[in-house]
């Protein structure tokens, strides 16, 4: 940053090397009280405040959010994302380090904005507007737009305590973006709105981004981060694990964090006579390395390890793939494949998909080994393995399958 940085007016900085939010060596400590009895009487009897343990929710976090960019924060539950965002919003005070935010900031934190439950939507809009530094006149000018965007004109004079959680978030979001912030902090709110509202939000985000505003976004929706953000950071246990472009970061994140998911996975059922069983299912990427994460359009192999405890004549292996909604995406078997007369001992069978047709999402594999006539089941396992598919080519496919094909413009 040059020394002229400070003179560049907000809003006209797109493309410059300016930093909108600078987080330097920030640490935040919470107190975990041993007893929740907060009374003066108890304190006097005890001779001091309740004992507590220190819990460091953020440890020496440093990062920079370039002005005019959309920045994603990812990490598992409890990793400190919301805490970091609240520190940026000045709601929490870090115990060490500094945070600089340039320009007007507006924040929409988890579970809605700071509304007063007894007041009507209208009164809350004015109250919140004045908290964000707008004058009555300025809010008057934006009021229609705010209500319009939230789609709540019928309920605007109802106390917000009677709103549904979606309505609450809509109004909060609408206020937060319509006050013209330079920096918008958003924590996990898009998840609450319905599909229509989510689309409106995405459009609004794009609009804000195009007009040079900075957005910091916390989301568990990895695809949201992947498509909307230009940069992302990954928090783990309060420590900044990595930062960089979303695509690379998310791949790394998913690889690391999904290992324990498979280890703890269960919930499927299993039956069969057991002469031959599937011992393990592996997903291999194009280079033949085991993975739990492939992209649409990439080459992938499902490797089924088996163990035949005796000689089994012409076994047929079949597998099915369901998405998490339970939609049966596909089911195939090896009946017509070229196969040996019989198998015995350990070995594996590969199923090679030259171009993974599944769209982004998580999938469960069900596997079965039956006899030639499908009369006898040796082994049947539902939800034997779970794997993920990330956006690839085509990146905007919808549904369960990306149909294979070519576009031709004449």
């Amino acid at each position, binding site marked *: 940053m040059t020394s002229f940085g400070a003179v560049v007016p907000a809003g006209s900085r797109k493309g410059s090397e300016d930093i909108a939010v600078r987080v330097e060596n920030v640490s935040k400590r*919470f*107190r975990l009280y041993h007893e929740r009895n*907060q*009374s*003066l*009487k108890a*304190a006097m009897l005890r001779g001091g*405040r309740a004992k507590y343990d220190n819990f460091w929710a953020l440890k020496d976090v440093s990062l920079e959010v370039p002005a005019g960019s959309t920045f994603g924060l990812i990490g598992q539950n409890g990793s400190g994302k919301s805490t970091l965002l*609240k520190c940026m*919003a*000045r*709601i*929490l*005070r870090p115990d060490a380090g500094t945070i600089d935010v340039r320009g007007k900031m507006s*924040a929409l*934190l988890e579970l*809605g*904005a*700071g*509304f*007063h*439950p*007894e*007041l009507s939507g209208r*009164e809350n809009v*004015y*109250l*919140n507007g*004045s*908290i*964000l*530094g*707008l*004058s*009555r006149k300025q809010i008057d000018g934006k009021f229609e737009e705010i209500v319009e965007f939230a789609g709540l004109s019928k309920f605007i004079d109802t106390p917000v305590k009677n709103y549904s959680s979606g309505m609450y978030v809509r109004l909060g979001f609408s206020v937060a973006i319509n006050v013209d912030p330079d920096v918008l902090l958003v924590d996990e709110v898009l998840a609450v709105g319905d599909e229509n509202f989510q689309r409106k939000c995405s459009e609004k985000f794009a609009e804000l981004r195009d007009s040079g505003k900075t957005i910091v976004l916390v989301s568990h929706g990895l695809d949201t981060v992947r498509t909307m953000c230009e940069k992302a950071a990954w928090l783990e246990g309060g420590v900044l694990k990595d930062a960089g472009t979303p695509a690379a970061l998310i791949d790394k994140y998913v690889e690391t964090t999904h290992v324990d998911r498979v280890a703890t996975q269960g919930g499927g059922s299993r039956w069969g006579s057991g002469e031959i069983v599937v011992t393990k299912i592996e997903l291999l990427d194009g280079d033949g390395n085991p993975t739990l994460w492939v992209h649409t359009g990439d080459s992938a192999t499902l490797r089924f390890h088996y163990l035949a405890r005796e000689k089994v004549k012409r076994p047929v292996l079949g597998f099915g793939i369901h998405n998490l909604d339970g939609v049966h995406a596909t089911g195939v078997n090896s009946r017509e494949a070229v196969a040996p007369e019989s198998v015995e001992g350990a070995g594996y069978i590969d199923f090679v998909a030259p171009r993974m047709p599944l769209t982004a999402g998580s999938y469960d594999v069900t596997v079965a080994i039956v006899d030639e006539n499908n009369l006898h089941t040796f082994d049947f396992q539902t939800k034997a393995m779970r794997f993920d598919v990330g956006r690839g080519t085509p990146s905007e496919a919808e549904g369960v399958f990306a149909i294979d094909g070519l576009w031709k413009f004449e």
Partner: protein
Amino acid sequence: MTVVAEVARSRELLGNLVQRELRGKYKRSTLGWAWSMINPLALALMYTFVFSFVFRAGSPVGAHGLKSFPLYLLIGLLPFNFLANGINGSMGALVANANLVKKVYFPREILIIAQVLSWDVSLLIEYGVLSVVLLVMGNLVIPFLPLVLLLIVAETLFVIGIGLALSVLNVYFRDVQHFVAIFLQLWLYATPIIYTYSFFRDHVLAVPVPGKVPTHHVWNHEWLLWLYKVNPMVGFSNSYHALMYNLRFPVWTDLVWPVVASFLTLAVGVRVFRKLEPRLAEEL
């Protein structure tokens, strides 16, 4: 002073919050503003009954021979109620607005200031009505009202100072308000409101003790009186009485000490608030 600057920048918000408090207070009942008069009037009636008829205490004599215990009482009681309401309101302000404090940033002092200012509005209305009654009774209070207003400003700073300190303490120790409620009861009796200052000075402190040397007794009396007057509300109350009941300028100590004490209290309150404020959002 950064506090003043920050609060000044948020005056729009302050206005909104005061309005919200007032609307909450007066919208609920159909009687609206009239309701706020009924409470002090009922108190005045009760005390008058107890003191004038049960104890047969004589009414203090004011300007032009004005003799009315209820008027004397209200002149002191209304500003004391302002103090009590302001302190109680401040103590609840942070907890009641936890949702705001945890979700948006703004100078949190505003919540306490708004709370106290909303009670100021009530006091001004009540004092306005009282002044009309005094005028009808022949007490020409108008030339003394500017000084009364200045005293109310000073008392407001006093209440804000106490409110700031107690509001954060109440977040850390939720039972502070119970102790304060008891303390406020005692405070009322330690202030010349339901009795007159001269009655207290002449009859309570200066009770002749048989067999004691008079000089010692005089010293004792002076010392206790000073201690009594450390309570800034004594000076405030004496001044309000002098200005509105007796239509004369207050004794200068009754003016200077409350004002000095108000600024001191405000300074302490701001410091306590600033000290405990950083952890507010997570403790709430």
